[in-house]
């Protein structure tokens, strides 16, 4: 099913620049953005915050059976990254060998192409992570 451009366009700040939110009342930070703090709910005070893109590997896997559209890059590494500011994000791990990956290793954000909608469709970009050391 073909989809509209706005679906991707409205997420550009988050996907290109790792812009999330924080609740000024309780200090919790969120990525992706949330309109409501799950702790303070309507009493919370939500503001945008840009994350540094620094973090460490919390868990990882190597995907050998990808979904449609990701076939050309298989196998690829996927991780859950714990950002230094606290939130966890899911992202591909690139420029590394599977045997180099380990829980706790430091990583940093890189800006990459994620997937293209066919040969003439939208090219979607976003963050991936690479090993820092």
């Amino acid at each position, binding site marked *: 099913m073909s989809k509209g451009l706005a679906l991707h366009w409205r*997420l550009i700040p988050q*996907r290109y620049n790792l812009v999330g939110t924080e609740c000024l009342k309780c200090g919790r930070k969120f990525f*992706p953005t949330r309109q409501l703090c799950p702790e303070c709910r309507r009493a919370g005070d939500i503001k945008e915050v840009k994350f540094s893109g620094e973090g460490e590997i*919390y*868990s*990882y*896997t*190597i*995907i*050998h*059976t*990808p*979904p*449609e559209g*990701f*076939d050309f*890059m298989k*196998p*690829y590494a*996927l*991780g*859950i990254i714990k950002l230094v500011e606290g*939130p*966890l*994000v*899911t*992202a*591909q791990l690139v420029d590394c060998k*599977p045997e180099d990956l380990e*829980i706790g290793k430091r990583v940093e954000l890189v800006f990459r192409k*994620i*997937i293209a909608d066919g040969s003439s469709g939208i090219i*979607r970009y*976003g963050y991936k992570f690479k090993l820092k050391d």
Partner: protein
Amino acid sequence: MSRKVAIIGIGMTKFGELWNKRYRDLITEAGADAIKDAGIEGEDIQGLYIGSMSPGLFAGQEHIGALVADYSGLSGIPATRIEAACASGGLALREAYLTIKSGAMDIVVAGGVEKMTDVTTSSATIALMGAGDQEWEAFKGVTFPSLYALMARRHMAEYGTTIEQISQVAVKSHHNASLNPHAQFPFKVTSEQVMNSAIIADPLRLLHCSPITDGAAAVVLASEEKAKRLVDDPIWIIGSSSATDTIALHDRKSLSRMDSTIIASKKAYKETKIKPEDIDFAEVHDCFSIAEILAIEGLSFCKLGDGGKITENGETEIDGRIPINPSGGLKGKGHPVGATGIAQAVEATLQLRGKAGKRQIKDSENALIHNVGGSGATTVIHILKRG
């Protein structure tokens, strides 16, 4: 809310790649079997709840309530589709239960159905990923096996769980499935076969993953008064609970336990005054082998972190301390996602009636069934008791 609710009829199709059967054929067949088993007539049925995860993507069909009522010859009665990813069936059962419990109706059918093999594997993978977070997981190339692989990796790191222990879950499921004529894979596998099967999402391999399956299941529920009048062996639903967690795995408090299961099971144990050690067997949601380990820990059949060990020790086998998935589970029996929660109720009822054939668990009185949606964002639990 004091009325008791019983399962008085059960039905299910063979699970597998059923190329000659349509979506509507599957659920009609399971429903007709359940109604026949209950010894009632179509006119007795006051309402339908159908669990189905993604018929729109798998079969291009929505508006499932009306479709199922129509092809069951029941047009006119209210019929509602319930969706909570792979927990759709369990939640349909819960809605049917609550409808009778509330006094709104006396006889209700809860069904579950999925027709998954009409699309390619990669399209099915995309449909199933709808159970996760489209914007922040699927967009990154995440698959469902990879989410459970991320959990497995944490469980192994935090508790020292081994791939051999995780593989033993699949070995046991296949052994049980070999005793179940409805199972998609009624054959045994060895630990070596599991650990040498194709890698799907490291450390999980093909034989750690439940399959893509067509199938349907249905149960007839009745109020105490009707149940006692209609059948000799009602199986009582004495507890029903459900809990949610964050949609994305990365927002969970922990990846090495399933909090929705812990919350729902505590509620169910409290409501029924039944303790984990009073449960004689359980059908749990082993969509991936690591999921069974998370399930049995979350249900307090062992301490957090000990799920691999008790599996390795044989405690979860049919003749073990706490038999898990005598049906073969999602791994061996098959996993037509919307049907799974209802198929668990079918197995538990068969066992409690003492009619489970070669896989019969001796002298069981209390059973627990556990159905999970997505990577754990929904858990639905029911506790069943023999008359």
